[in-house]
């Protein structure tokens, strides 16, 4: 009898032990994936940023903060930060605003709405390299579509070499990025708009809410989480955009479009200075995360009325 009770207790203990490990076992594949795909490169990049890496001779020397000191005291970094902030401002403001506008427009019933929605997706379907090439032609000083349009409308009497001007070069590389991003933002916001229950508006009308109040307390409140995602995505792109800018200007003319990502590419893939590249990468990651967090804190309210 006592042996039977003992066996039962043992079996229960084992069962309990087995159950205790089940959650960990289930989580393990995801944890392993996160460690391998995210954590390990992150840690490696941090270690690299404190090292001088000679890939050819397979020699790595620990050099402390030297890469960071060189980066922060060099001519290009702070300029790249300044340029990138301006670039990011355009890439965040333009697509978010226009995206919201197009989403609000295309959620309404009107003839040609499906054509409008199809056109909206087109820029998003193009690769960044193609976007760069396309915008290079659009702003071309000899036969660009933009110059043609302005000339036809009588707004200019001579074609303007936009990409020769430092300010216009920055504006148009940012607009090229914003163009595709507007499409993406609008798609997300349109999807969110379509989930707003119609009776919320009806109830608000009964309560005497005007158009502005309905937008503020229903539409905007409902869109807030999606807007946070859109903003975050645009901020990340504003700091990490590379392809289109590289295609259009390679960081020029002069340093006009020298984004931090362009600097990162040059250090890592042209100079093969992995240590400096890692340092730039870490700083870029911190800047993006910092700015992103500020916006999330400002926009996202987890306990807002409808979310």
């Amino acid at each position: 009898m006592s042996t039977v009770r003992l066996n039962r207790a043992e079996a229960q203990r084992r069962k309990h032990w087995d159950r205790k490990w089940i959650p960990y076992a289930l989580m393990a594949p995801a944890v392993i994936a996160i460690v391998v795909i995210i954590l390990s490169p992150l840690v490696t990049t941090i270690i690299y940023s404190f090292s001088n890496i000679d890939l050819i001779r397979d020699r790595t020397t620990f050099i402390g903060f030297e890469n960071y000191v060189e980066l922060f005291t060099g001519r290009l970094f702070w300029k790249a930060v300044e340029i990138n902030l301006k670039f990011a401002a355009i890439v965040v403001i333009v697509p978010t605003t226009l995206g919201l506008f197009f989403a609000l427009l295309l959620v309404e019933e009107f003839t040609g709405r499906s054509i409008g929605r199809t056109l909206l997706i087109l820029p998003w379907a193009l690769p960044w390299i193609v976007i760069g090439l396309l915008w290079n032609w659009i702003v071309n000083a000899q036969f660009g579509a933009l110059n043609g349009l302005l000339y036809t409308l009588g707004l200019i009497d001579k074609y303007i070499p936009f990409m020769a001007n430092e300010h216009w070069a920055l504006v148009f590389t940012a607009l090229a990025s914003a163009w595709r991003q507007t499409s993406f933002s609008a798609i997300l916001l349109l999807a969110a708009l379509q989930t707003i229950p119609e009776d919320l508006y009806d109830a608000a009308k009964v309560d005497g809410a005007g158009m502005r109040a309905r937008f503020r307390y229903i539409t905007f409140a409902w869109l807030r989480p999606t807007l946070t995602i859109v903003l975050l995505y645009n901020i990340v792109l504003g700091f990490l955009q590379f392809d289109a800018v590289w295609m259009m200007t390679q960081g020029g003319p002069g340093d006009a479009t020298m984004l931090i990502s362009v600097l990162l590419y040059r250090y890592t893939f042209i100079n093969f200075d992995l240590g400096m590249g890692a340092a730039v990468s870490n700083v870029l990651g911190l800047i993006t995360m910092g700015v992103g967090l500020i916006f999330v804190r400002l926009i996202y309210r987890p306990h807002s009325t409808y979310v």
Partner: protein
Amino acid sequence: MLRKRQLSRRQFLRGTGAGLASMALAGAPASRLLAQGDALQFYGWDFQPDTIQQHLDNFTAQTGIPVDLHIIPNVGYSTGIQTKLLGGVHMDVYYNFKYNSTRFFNAGWARRMDDLPDADAIMDEMFASSVPSYTTPDGQLISMPYFSAVHVLHYNERMLSESGFDAPPQTKQELYDQCKKLKEDGVEAPYLAYWIKEFCEEYLQVYLLSEGVTPFSPEGEPAFADDSKTADVFEWWQAMFQDGMTSPTQLTDQPGEQMTAMQNGTSAFYVLHHYFLKLMNAGGGPEVEHLRIADRMPGADGKTFQMGEIVQMSDGANVDRSWELVKFYTWKDANGERSVHKSWAAAAALGAPYPDFYDDPEVQANYGDFYDFEQIKDMFGNNSDVVQARNQPWYSEFQTHVGDEIQRMLQGNISPADTVSSLADKVVELRAQE
């Protein structure tokens, strides 16, 4: 009965796992065999991959040696090939950029070739001026020519004639004066310079050589900094850009846009590789029939810069077969014909550093009758130089620095004299890090 035949989820997963495992096991020896080099592994960038494949097929047909072709896009090729090599991918023969040649050799990814059969004969056949671009400073042959080109001054003969000039300019000042007159006569941006960042360095060599400046000492020291003519070149560039002799978009324009400007007649001068004349002719346009190549670069010395890209090979068990492929691709095929270089001549008027190449009627036909072959041959043989420092491991970082500094200088953000100092300091710094 039916139930028994159905596959449970567990059985399916087990079966799939077993299948994948057996496939992996079966695949392992095959991939190992491949790595050992049953077929040679050839890597190249994406300029006419079908033609490359055709060359490799011809090689296999002539020698019986099979070759696998791997294409990596030109944009990012250098990064791609190095990443693969660092990851242990085996390559027997591969295209490379000259600035990588010594670095790859030092890393053990490329083998010397001067100890292999026919190497001496190959070097003897080359233009003497071309040889240093394939060797280390101490004379070891570490690469072979995929193609060669010389920078030339293309000009529009009709426009010059209508503006009262019966010959292209011989000096920088003459070029400036002719541009000024052409601009007064209505040519929008008379001079085209390919001043995008990654190309400024090649331009630097062209103009230093044309003025008779020695760019680097044999050891790679910045000899250009000791010659006052370097600052003169920069002052002239600055004047050309700031006085509107060039299009203001020159710092970001691509060759496609520049060729169009020559083809349509919005520009009259264009300095770039000799093969652009063929590309412009192929593209057509109202001014194409008036485009010519000047006998010399404007400048005190009139010399120009000879460039090109290369083929390298790795060491190992496949050396003999790889060398056969390298010779076929960069020198002569089994029939003694320069068939590969001839096909590149047909495709895009690419050159080769062998004098007899330009005497070949087939090559001349492939280039087109708008070329003067004595002139091209003379430029390769007598009127151009290579810059051996460009093979050095530190050079690619110098190139990016040149792009930054030249564009700043053209925009007037840094003086020509300071640009010279900045470039020289960078060379010293980079060489010290080696």
